[in-house]
């Protein structure tokens, strides 16, 4: 049980990077970008291909980020220069990336044009490299002793992965917080808020949309590259429904932690991504559910995250009104007593 939750937290933290990308388009830019399903795989495919070809995992990951950035920019160009509806631009790019991703992975084998998946079983990854450094520190043993002492017998193999993904995600959160407060960041936020207004303050909304989509998909591809290295494979189907998972994370996070400031919202999105993974892991432990039901469970989680806050708000409202009615009645009675 503990190791299952532990694994979902690790994954949740990696997926949180993708969720931050989705937050950047859906919330900040107000652009429903469906490129995500494709660019996530692009990140995974690029990183896996390069690692298999013998490049350093860090370089592979960086190239994956650039690939995602380019994919996002393309969607932005389709929308702003081609005047194609935002949803359609994203869908077109997503479907185009499906073929492109096959081709990228095809680079790993001779005489092959497209390839649907790449295993990374014996390859070096960012995580395996960090592991070498981490295992010398002896922190694993210490933490696992603590777990043993509170009665948890099955302990995680290593804490290194958790630490490294946590470090990366927190770093990205702070960079995102900072970026959204810079002059360019403010202009991107204003583009999502009121295009006409920011144009009248000499900002080129087309460029800002393209840039925003590029950055968002760079994060998504980064997340994909890390997931490929974490789970030691890249597969052309791994991006299906990714946008829904990203949205689920954003919505769950915002519903629970609120959106008062940018810093709080980005934290909420990360927490949302982790909570989503934990809920999913718990749901999969139910006897009659199978791993094939994952997408269905995802849909149900998102629907609940959208509906429950509405009920909660209504309930709150009703209670508040009832309370006020009560106080008015009491005030009236008090008045008549005096009279």
């Amino acid at each position, binding site marked *: 049980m503990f190791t299952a939750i532990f694994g979902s937290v690790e994954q949740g933290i990696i997926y949180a990077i993708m969720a931050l990308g989705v937050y950047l388009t859906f919330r900040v830019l107000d652009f429903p970008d469906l490129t995500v399903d494709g660019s996530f795989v692009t990140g995974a495919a690029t990183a896996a291909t390069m690692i298999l070809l013998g490049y350093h995992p860090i370089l592979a990951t960086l190239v994956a980020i650039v690939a995602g950035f380019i994919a996002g920019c393309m969607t932005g160009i389709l929308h702003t220069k081609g005047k194609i509806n935002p949803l359609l631009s994203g869908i077109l790019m997503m479907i185009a990336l499906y073929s492109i991703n096959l081709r990228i992975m095809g680079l790993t084998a001779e005489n092959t044009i497209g390839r649907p998946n790449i295993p990374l079983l014996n390859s070096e990854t960012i995580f395996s490299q960090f592991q070498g450094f981490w295992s010398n520190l002896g922190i694993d043993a210490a933490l696992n002793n603590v777990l043993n002492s509170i009665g948890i017998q099955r302990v995680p193999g290593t804490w290194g992965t958790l630490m490294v993904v946590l470090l990366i995600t927190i770093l990205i959160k702070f960079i995102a917080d900072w970026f959204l407060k*810079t*002059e360019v960041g*403010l202009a991107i936020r204003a583009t999502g808020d009121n295009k006409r207004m920011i*144009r*009248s303050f000499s900002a080129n909304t087309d460029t800002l949309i393209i840039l925003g989509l590029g950055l968002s998909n760079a994060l998504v591809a980064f997340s994909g590259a890390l997931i490929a290295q974490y789970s030691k494979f890249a597969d052309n189907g791994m991006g299906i429904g990714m946008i829904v998972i990203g949205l689920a994370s954003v919505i769950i996070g915002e519903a629970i932690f609120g959106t008062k400031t940018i810093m709080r919202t980005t934290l909420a999105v990360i927490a949302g991504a982790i909570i989503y993974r934990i809920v999913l892991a718990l749901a999969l432990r139910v006897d009659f559910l199978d791993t094939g039901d994952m997408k269905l469970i995802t849909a149900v989680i998102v629907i609940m995250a959208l509906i429950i806050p509405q009920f909660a708000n209504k309930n709150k409202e009703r209670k508040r009104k009832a309370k006020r009615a009560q106080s008015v009645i009491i005030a009236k009675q008090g008045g008549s007593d005096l009279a």
Partner: protein
Amino acid sequence: MLKLDGINKIFNEGTPDEKIALADINLHLKPGDFVTIIGSNGAGKSTMMNMVSGALTPDFGTVSIDGNNVTALPEYKRSQFIGRVFQDPMAGTAPTMTIEENVALAYSRNKRRGLRIGVDKKRREFFKESLEMLGLNLENRLSAKVGLLSGGERQALSLLMATFTKPSILLLDEHTAALDPSRAELITSITKHLVEKDNLTTLMVTHNMQQALDLGNRLIMMDKGQIILEVGEDRKHELTIPDLMAEFESIRGEKMNSDRALLG
């Protein structure tokens, strides 16, 4: 400062809905001119404003600012030196961003936006000082979201933001029309103050004839896409509303449609 030469614009050309929006408009503003524009609905006032701002481009004719031909310059480039306040109080600000962030957006209008923090300590002080001038206590609510402000407050903020970088041209498009009378009066006095402070070259569209007479040093009246009356500095201060109505009748030979031309 601002020069419109032979501006023509036809909407829906070649269709049954064809409408001549502007017919050979010539207008020349000297630095510091404050021109008020009146005219009934469909006279072409807003179209003319959009020609200046770059939201629309003329079919033919040229727009020059500071001696540079800007006819082909897109709106976002032109707005480096044009400030604009819209009629809709919601249009001039970003609602989910804070007051100081909105002012920061205005502050970087004529600068290249980079990776500098938009609101740092030094700028915050400067923004605060500028907001104080509005007398609406906005300087103490710097981190409040603009969406929470009232229409009047938002319009005052829009006005400050539009004039913040001392633009070459200020465009005011019926910017008091959506407010109640007392708020409208406040915005009018703020307008007067801001324009006079920096001696801004201003074009203001209004439906309120009294406002058109009170503000500015020149007045033009438009009808059916043409400028039908121009009143210069020398005559403007002695002009009255009945004078304007009479002028319109004598030029057009018909009674002015005063439904929306408020006499107040």
